């Protein structure tokens, strides 16, 4: 596996005694979009902050492109761009100045043409001379992204990038993330919006209580954990599930006009064919049928609930 970030047995205990990370190990593949999901206080931001050098780990280590983030911090941090969760900006700086500042801070020579390119890509060029305090929340979020991209990083961390932004901007950001991935940038994002992970991620990690519960390909995760349901819409209402169908995992709708059958695709047989035969034998009249698959959000909630 071509790992660009390797987190090895990382733990973080704050001075208050709160254990934010507990022996976390994780490998991020070069060029992938990795989504880290977890409830509030799960350890997502601490994990990102530790990888980026903002927080000292209590134990364990992190390699970025083979460089230790403590012993060889220059080469490790040089490759990383970070968009923080909070809208932390220098209120009195102009957009152009603050993005140029970030580029210099990461050791890159001044390059106004490149900064212009980023600002145009993020629809910020018209605001280049505007002070940060005069920008809306969504615009500030764009500036934070521009700052993170100003030094041409190979790895981009997006900590809750969609927090507080409208739908249009969210879709713009998703498009930008895809463009970055096409250029070979590795993206690691944390999010509360499951649809965001579902929409973009190649792999998904779930963290809870400072522990990484699982890391899986998104498609595989949905295949393994995603339950499917077959809804049978009936021509006439039933007072209860007929005894002939009692062996199936069926649920009758409150008004008695639909039966929902829950099944899994992991096993060799789904039982659908047998169910339909038995429904026909029981003399039930079918008006329509449809299937639905559980969303990533349902999978996520299930995982967290199981853990608790």
């Amino acid at each position, binding site marked *: 596996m071509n790992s660009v970030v390797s987190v090895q047995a990382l733990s973080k205990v704050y001075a208050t005694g709160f254990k934010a990370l507990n022996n976390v190990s994780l490998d991020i593949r070069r060029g992938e979009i990795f989504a880290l999901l977890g409830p509030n206080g799960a350890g997502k931001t601490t994990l990102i902050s530790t990888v*980026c050098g903002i927080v000292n780990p209590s134990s364990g280590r992190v390699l970025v492109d083979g460089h230790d983030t403590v012993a060889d911090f220059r080469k490790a941090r040089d490759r990383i761009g970070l968009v923080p969760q909070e809208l932390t900006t220098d209120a*009195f700086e102009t957009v152009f100045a603050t993005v140029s500042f970030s580029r210099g801070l990461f050791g890159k020579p001044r390059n106004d043409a490149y900064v212009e390119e980023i600002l145009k890509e993020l629809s910020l060029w018209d605001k280049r001379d505007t002070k940060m305090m005069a920008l809306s929340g969504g615009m500030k979020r764009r500036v934070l992204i521009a700052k993170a991209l100003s030094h041409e990083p190979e790895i981009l961390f997006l900590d809750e990038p969609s927090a507080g932004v409208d739908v249009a901007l969210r879709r713009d950001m998703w498009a930008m993330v895809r463009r970055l991935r096409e250029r070979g940038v590795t993206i690691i994002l944390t999010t509360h919006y499951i649809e965001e992970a579902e929409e973009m991620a190649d792999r998904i990690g779930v963290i809870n209580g400072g522990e990484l519960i699982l890391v899986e390909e998104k498609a595989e995760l949905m295949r393994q954990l995603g339950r499917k349901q077959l809804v049978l819409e009936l021509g006439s209402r039933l007072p209860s599930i007929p005894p002939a169908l009692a062996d199936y995992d069926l649920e009758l709708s409150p008004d008695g006009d639909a039966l929902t059958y829950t099944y899994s695709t992991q096993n060799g047989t789904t039982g659908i064919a047998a169910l339909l035969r038995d429904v026909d034998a029981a003399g039930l009249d079918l008006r329509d049928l449809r299937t639905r698959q559980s969303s990533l959000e349902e999978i996520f909630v299930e995982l967290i609930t199981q853990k608790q």
Partner: protein
Amino acid sequence: MNIHAIRAIYRFEMARTIRTLLQSIVSPVISTSLYFVVFGAAIGSRISEIDGVSYGAFIVPGLVMLSLLTQSISNASFGIYFPRFAGTIYEVLSAPVSFVEVVLGYVGAAATKSIVLGLIILLTAGFFVPLRVEHPVWMLCFLVLTAVSFSLFGFIIGIWADGFEKLQLVPLLIVTPLTFLGGSFYSIDMLPPFWRAVTLFNPVVYLVSGFRWSFYGKADVDVGVSLTMTLVFFALCIALVAWIFRTGYRLRN
């Protein structure tokens, strides 16, 4: 060495100074000018010469030192505290910069501002009192060394402080009294022997004395001792800043 980062931080801090020109430069110059008017021209004319120097001229090095200390601490402490307060410090902490580069940027800018201010105050003093500088090179050495040392001290306060009140605590309760009692407005030879001995425990005495020597060739304590004490304070501050960045104290925890 990440020269681009040092330049970025330095320029950012200097831009802040220019944005707040009234507060940064004009305000301290007006305050110091008032000292000259009150102590130099009004009261000073009724006080006899000290070591052959008119009272108005005698207090110039002390007043410059007073501004230099307070402004160095204030500039550097605010420079690093505000990004911590606003949260923008994340960018410096995640950047490929060592503590030396961070310090060169923040402390360099704070010291530059203080030195410029000190020189402006000296020029202003020239309008009120007759001024002479016997050892201009040493005067500049003391000016730079004191500005850098106390900017480092301010930087440490800016990292230690966890609120605006604490940010003001050390300058108000410790530095200003020590400066006033450190011979800024008098020669410590004018004190009774007991209080003179006590005053020698005040580190500001050595700064003011050495600085005044560079003007008039006369000092309360030997100039070599003054220089040594300043260098010791500078080294202590450097060591403390290095420890802060090595442990991540109040920055990475």
